[in-house]
């Protein structure tokens, strides 16, 4: 099946710092989504981004489908950005493959 790899697996940031998370996938995909899981377990959809660039406040994402990767940018990080970021790709009807996640800790 399709492989989804996220890097770095763990990241510690000082509040106010910027960071980039990466998602590589091994095959062509129909779409790609980024999620944030907060410390209480809730998964929030951040971006639905099969290609191109989108921005939402301090977060932005870019997917280059032809090169099989996506990047999530966090600017001016805040403690509320802590949690796990998941990348998921659709590779068949109604099937998403999830990466293992990027664990982010933002310290004040």
């Amino acid at each position: 099946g399709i492989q989804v790899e996220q890097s770095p697996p763990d990241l510690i940031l000082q509040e106010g710092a910027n960071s980039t998370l990466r998602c590589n996938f091994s095959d062509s995909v129909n779409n790609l989504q980024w999620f944030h899981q907060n410390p209480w377990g809730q998964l929030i959809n951040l971006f639905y981004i099969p290609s191109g660039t989108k921005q939402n406040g301090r977060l932005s994402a870019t997917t280059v489908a032809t090169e099989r990767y996506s990047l999530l940018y966090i600017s001016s990080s805040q403690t509320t950005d802590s949690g796990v970021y998941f990348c998921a790709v659709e590779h068949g009807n109604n099937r998403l493959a999830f990466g293992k996640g990027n664990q982010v800790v933002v310290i004040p």
Partner: protein
Amino acid sequence: DVKVTQSSRYLVKRTGEKVFLECVQDMDHENMFWYRQDPGLGLRLIYFSYDVKMKEKGDIPEGYSVSREKKERFSLILESASTNQTSMYLCASSLSQYYTGELFFGEGSRLTVL
């Protein structure tokens, strides 16, 4: 905003008990999904449904069944719970039945089987 509500945040059950996990969405979505999340294994699809009374097996359906009698409600059933089913269970929904689309998750149900 889409709201996906799972009936229980935390459950503790005994081995052999029957367990029902309920999920309700309020946005008339066609697709509904059940995942389980375990440390080191990420999110894995158990079952999904693209329409009322329709269901498809995901990657790890063994030991589980599902029911979708109404569009807004999707239930996960553990007929005889076992300790290896201790996990976080996540329900999700999306708009179209033809592809996954933008996925919305509930808050999760953390099940412990003793």
